[in-house]
């Protein structure tokens, strides 16, 4: 029989408590990031530098390239979308890594916070980090080169959704690796995305890849997004087939990423590493 709780501190319950816990994770990382100018600037720094680099490449090549004359935003748009996915993945992984660095994981996992709630917090932080990081670069692209990411029109919503979700899936898989192997897996957080970059056709069509790599590209949502981006810029049409395929693939990858993370945490509970995980 349960010992009854004395009525003292009033606590939220049900869905309200769950939302509060997710918000707690967002608040914790929000305090860290959004109250530090240094962190805000560092998030936007890399995407901005990359945009500037590709903008100058575009300016240099455009006079001799019909492709860039027809679609001057080809490279800048590509690099912004790529960074959206990269930031999306980093946002998920870094939310976990910060907890490991702080040796705070034990406190979180003995709180009423469930793993799905923690993951939801990771995903919200991922979107916020992506918006801040890429948003800064977008502003620079507009100010310096008069390029607006919104020139994609409504297609941008499809691109954004598919790239961020794919970033989440990879971020959750990286989180699983970090829980499994500790901070030794941290490098994966930075390197994982670059493994899919060459096959995603960020700056070139998938058709330039060898036949066997084209097969690999078919199962990457990012490849469908960048093919879609070129279709919008060069042909002026939104390729729904690429959108739906990417969305379906993302559903599978996101489920796999979440399952992998859940397995890693379950395994850590068995191995007894959750409480002591840290630097």
């Amino acid at each position, binding site marked *: *029989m349960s010992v009854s709780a004395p009525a003292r501190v009033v*606590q939220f319950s049900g869905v309200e408590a769950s939302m509060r816990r997710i918000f707690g994770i967002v*608040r*914790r990382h929000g*305090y*860290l990031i959004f109250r530090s100018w240094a962190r805000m600037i560092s998030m936007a720094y890399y995407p901005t530098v990359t945009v500037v680099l590709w903008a100058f490449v575009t300016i240099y090549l455009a006079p001799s390239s019909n492709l860039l004359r027809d679609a001057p935003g080809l490279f800048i748009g590509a690099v912004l979308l790529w960074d959206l996915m990269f930031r999306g993945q980093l946002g998920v992984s870094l939310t976990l890594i910060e907890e490991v660095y702080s040796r705070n994981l*034990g406190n979180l996992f003995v709180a*009423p916070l469930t793993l799905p709630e923690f993951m939801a917090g990771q995903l919200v932080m991922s979107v916020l980090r992506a918006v801040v990081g890429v948003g800064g670069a977008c502003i620079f692209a507009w100010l310096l080169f008069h390029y607006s990411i919104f020139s994609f029109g409504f297609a941008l919503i499809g691109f954004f959704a598919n790239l961020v979700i794919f970033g989440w899936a990879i971020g959750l898989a990286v989180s699983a690796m970090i829980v499994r192997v500790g901070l030794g897996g941290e490098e994966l957080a930075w390197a994982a995305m670059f493994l899919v970059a060459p096959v995603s056709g960020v700056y070139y069509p998938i058709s330039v890849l060898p036949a066997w790599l084209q097969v690999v590209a078919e199962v990457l949502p990012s490849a469908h997004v960048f093919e879609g981006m070129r279709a919008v810029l060069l042909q002026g049409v939104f390729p729904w087939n690429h959108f739906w395929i990417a969305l379906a693939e993302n559903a599978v990858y996101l489920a796999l990423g979440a399952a992998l993370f859940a397995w890693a945490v379950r395994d850590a509970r*068995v191995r007894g590493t959750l409480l002591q995980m*840290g630097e």
Partner: protein
Amino acid sequence: MADDVAIAVSDLAKRYGEVEAVKGISFAVRAGTTTALLGGNGAGKTTTLSMLLGVLTPTAGRVTVLGVEMPRHRHRVLHRMNFTSPYVDLPKRLTVFQNLRVFADLYGVRRAKDRIAAVAEECDLAALLGRKYGELSAGQRTRVSLAKALINEPDVLLLDEPTASLDPDIGDRMRSSLERYQRTSGCTMLLASHHMGEVERMCDDVIMLRAGRVVDQGSPDALIARYGRQTMEEVFLDVARGRTGMRNVPTAGAGADEVAI
């Protein structure tokens, strides 16, 4: 299980490969009491606490906290529990207030600002709320950890070496805070400690562990009398060094694991 039992442990075991960290221990902790888990390094105290918190999956056995089976149904009871441990820390770049605000969210505390003000007062932290946790001294950090552990006014508080590395003054203040909280809330406390003075002062009951087994248990006074010693420190040394044959001392594996206190 009796109505007044807050924590019940039955045949609890944890094995890491070839190493048996906890070897089928059983005990019960009465609601509203303070109980110590004593034992040398590697005796299984932290492992046992981890299983009680649901953060470590037992190899065998059963744990219930406030009538709820752990770790399977832990989310039904974790909001009524809390803990502190030297093995975990808080984010160093957040202020004390920010840390407490986050944990108020995680524990679903309504009127969080009022509650933070109350625990800050209780733990003598009011002047430190705006300071970054990483800038605090060890003693101040320990007080913040205690404030975090009290944020939800837990019914069950698990404390792993709560006063380790504290000077006598801060250690005494910490113990006073815990005693005051226990008196006013009726909370059940289970603490792992190497500080025998703390155990004599705070604990109603003691569970002695050695090499993953419960080797003795009883009140501090009863244990001191049973071992014919003057202090818990001496009892601890007897148990840690395997000197269990003083007077009426149960030996490991001969029923010592099964006594409820």
